[in-house]
């Protein structure tokens, strides 16, 4: 028996006897005989020491952000995570608990979610935030559905071409059966003004990301004004890290704020689990997908927390629910809560400042290298586009051989930019790292025949 099983042969025999059968196999008599007990062809079982050694080997095949100097972002970020976050996350009370359906013995989870909701509201300027969505992509997709069901008789959603390509793809996946059109991003060169020009009476929502996929910061206010005037809603997709310093989307007029929370205390983990941010103004609350926690009191009058407004959800409303979401990203929301609590006001601002100044330093240094150009249409936060005379994939291959993970290759998603990479600089990239990166680019320029 495996080392997770807590019963002895004797105990199993006693149970079989109580049930009145002689062999556990009999419990499966109901399974059609021809397909019962198939021989599974799986690799032989490994011991714990063996699996950890194999994982060590496999892990070393990967170029992670600890073994390379990474300047890769594009929706997943190498931000600093204080050790305390994981130390607390590893408490079994948090990570081995289920959804807090029995509030008397789940106050830890419930209070943490309540605090998460509160922190998000403070950061985004929204009235309510759910207990998390899957990720930044699904959050924006469900926000579109929420907007669509919240406003009457409008069937179009406009999305800026500078919204993360994965988010736009997910948005289309989510809405394909719902009879609503998604447009606005057909021309990847389109500006925000071009998008605003497309708003009309059929526009249920406009989706804008800021900082956008290419790193640019946008003022949401004019967008909000325009879409509100047409009776639609503004959905903003944001980077929580940027919000330590930049525009409060709620104050600027956004109705629904979504985003990817990974940068706030969550490891890169090859793409997940991450954290979908989902918050809105009060008037859309009853259409919000996902779980919500509210404060209340117990029979003794002590303050406590419970899941609330559950009549929006699938387990109560079934096909009339606002969404089918059940399992969410609870532990990631906890990570973000602990992370934000550790940072606090000052830390949030400081992280954003470090990113901003270091990214601008990197941009200005790269701009000095012949053969490279920084393409920035306006203010940016921690990412910026660098165009190059070199094809980006070969550039990145050379950089990799120098221990550097270059920026995201934009060639496929934004062909109009030519040879372009999206460079990301965070508080994890020191000046020294940046100088090394710049030096590497310079070396490549100087020996450009190598490509």
């Amino acid at each position: 028996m495996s080392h997770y099983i807590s019963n002895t042969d004797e105990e199993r025999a006693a149970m079989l006897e109580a049930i009145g059968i002689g062999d556990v196999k009999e419990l499966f008599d109901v399974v059609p005989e021809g397909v019962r007990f198939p021989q599974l062809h799986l690799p032989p079982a490994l011991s714990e020491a063996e699996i950890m050694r194999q994982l060590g080997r496999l892990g070393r095949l990967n170029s992670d952000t600890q073994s390379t100097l990474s300047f890769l972002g594009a929706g997943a970020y190498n931000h600093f995570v204080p050790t305390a976050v994981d130390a607390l996350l590893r408490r079994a009370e948090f990570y081995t608990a289920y959804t807090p359906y029995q509030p008397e013995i789940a106050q830890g989870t419930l209070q943490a979610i309540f605090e998460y909701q509160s922190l998000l509201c403070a950061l985004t300027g929204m009235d309510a935030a759910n207990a998390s969505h899957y990720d930044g992509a699904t959050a924006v997709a469900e926000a579109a559905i929420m907007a669509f069901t919240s406003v009457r008789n409008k069937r179009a959603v406009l999305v800026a071409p500078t919204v993360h390509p994965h988010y736009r793809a997910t948005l289309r996946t989510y809405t394909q059966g719902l009879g609503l059109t998604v447009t606005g991003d057909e021309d990847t060169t389109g500006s925000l003004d071009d998008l605003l020009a497309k708003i009309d009476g059929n526009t249920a929502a406009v989706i804008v990301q800021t900082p956008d996929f290419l790193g640019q910061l946008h003022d949401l206010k004019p967008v909000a004004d325009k879409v509100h005037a047409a009776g639609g809603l503004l959905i903003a997709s944001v980077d929580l890290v940027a919000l330590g310093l930049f525009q409060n989307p709620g104050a600027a007029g956004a109705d629904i704020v979504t985003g990817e929370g990974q940068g706030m205390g969550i490891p890169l983990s090859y793409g997940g689990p991450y954290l979908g941010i989902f918050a809105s103004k009060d008037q859309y609350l009853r259409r919000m997908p996902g779980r919500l926690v509210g404060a209340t009191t117990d029979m003794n009058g002590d303050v406590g927390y419970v899941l609330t407004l559950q009549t929006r959800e699938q387990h109560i409303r079934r096909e009339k629910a606002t969404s089918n979401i059940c399992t969410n990203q609870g532990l990631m929301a906890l990570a973000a809560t602990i992370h934000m609590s550790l940072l606090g006001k000052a830390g949030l601002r400081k992280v954003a400042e470090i990113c901003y100044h270091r990214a601008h330093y990197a941009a200005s240094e790269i701009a000095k290298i012949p053969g490279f150009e920084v393409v920035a249409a306006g203010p940016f936060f921690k990412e910026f586009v660098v165009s190059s005379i070199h094809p980006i994939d070969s550039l990145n291959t050379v950089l990799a051989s120098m221990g550097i993970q270059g920026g995201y290759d934009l060639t496929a998603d934004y062909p109009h930019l030519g040879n372009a990479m999206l460079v990301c600089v965070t508080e994890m990239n020191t000046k020294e790292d940046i100088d090394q990166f710049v030096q590497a680019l310079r070396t490549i320029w100087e020996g450009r025949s190598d490509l």
Partner: protein
Amino acid sequence: MNTFEPPIFELSGAGKCGVNLPAIDVPLVDLPQELLRTDDLAGFPELSETEVTRHFTRISQRNFCIDTGMYPLGSCTMKYNPKVHEAAARLPGFAALHPLTDPTHAQGALWIMEQLQSMLAEISGFDAVSLQPAAGAQGEFSGILVFRAYHRAQGADERVEVLCPDSAHGTNPATAAMVGMRVVEVKTDHNGNVDLDDLRSKLGPRTAGLMLTNPNTLGLFDEHVQQVANLVHAAGGLMYGDGANFNAILGIVRPGDVGFDYMHYNLHKTFTTPHGGGGPGCGAVGCKTFLEDYLPGPRVRHIIDSDKFELFPPPQSIGRLKAFHGNFGMIIRAWVYIRTLGADGLREVSENAVLNANYLRIKLQDLYPVAYNRPCMHEVVLKGQLREAPGAKTLDIAKRLIDYGFHPPTVYFPISVPEAIMIEPTETESKRNMDAFIAAMRQIAAEAVADITILKQAPTTAPLRRLDEVGAARKPILKYDPAKFRELRRAHVAATSNEQPERPTY
């Protein structure tokens, strides 16, 4: 030891910070003034690391969890979460790996993904697997989208009806609705199977497919599953398998062998990635070859004639379900689980899970009527209808179990069973603890007869007494607000047990 802890906002003090950040080591540049936030992050707390650590440690102790006791939550498979999984997922080669890393430099991760795809396919009898979905519900969503795409490809746009048994989990009908399908409910027969007559009557040219959980949410293996599949297929529909209950049948029977066309795996149930207080999960999906091209992507494949792996989007994919490649942190845990248990270990899982559940059934059915009287699979559904204490409700029984040191089972689900109590011990539970649970259930039945207030007042030993859920919903307080908290503390609304909503918990 008292673990009461105020909202973190009440521990804040101006100027404190809980992290040790680097200094800015580059020249400062101007900030775009017009884009700065102007509210000074009002409402944001300021604490030291010391305080943050204490706050979350203290509130954590107000949680029950698998590591503190038996957690027999039906449909949720609250089995032990191996510690080695946590170490594996945190190895820097994986935890610090950027999803957009050039695949050449992410071969270790891709190798694991490809092998997990193959192993899941083998265990379930399918031909192709995608690891992208973030949870079971998203797996379902992908499946119904695939069904829709498939039917459309056949020119059968009219197939917009999704059949769901009345015992189905809420995500099933909710999913169908999200795809724009119409939900048609199918009855359960007196043995807890799909009612074949009712099924026949509801199948037709508009049928897109049937969503079936098997073993179903009554904890029963459908006795006519192959017949059901045949009927659905004959009507031109497809069979969706909700794999939430896969823990009962590892190495016992493969869903692909009994007629399912597509199914999701809840890696966070069967393959024991931790539930995390609500998530994250991974709702990987598998299917037969004829649906493979529609799967959500990216998937991973071996590059022919090489020892390398690559990501690729299936050619007619329904599209991306989320950013990047799936919840890799869950994928690696599930991979470790299967690689350390092997085929024999997996079969042991199911055998023990089913044995444990039947033991509970046998020991409790005289007092708590079983919903359907036949051997169950990994969970048993009872009714909280005590003959001699009709005033006792399932909710009361559940709350009283807390005082005995157990997490209550799932209650009021399936909604088709009145006063349902759905108990899933899982294979990692010990007979010793189950015997204590049985004793507690029997004792509670006795208490219900002797003095029902014991149940109505329960729990009394938990960090809190019963909470006022009705009040919470009537006047929602969804974020911290000092004034509302002052009021709440003053109000001391005494929630009575009668005001408790009875609703599914799973």
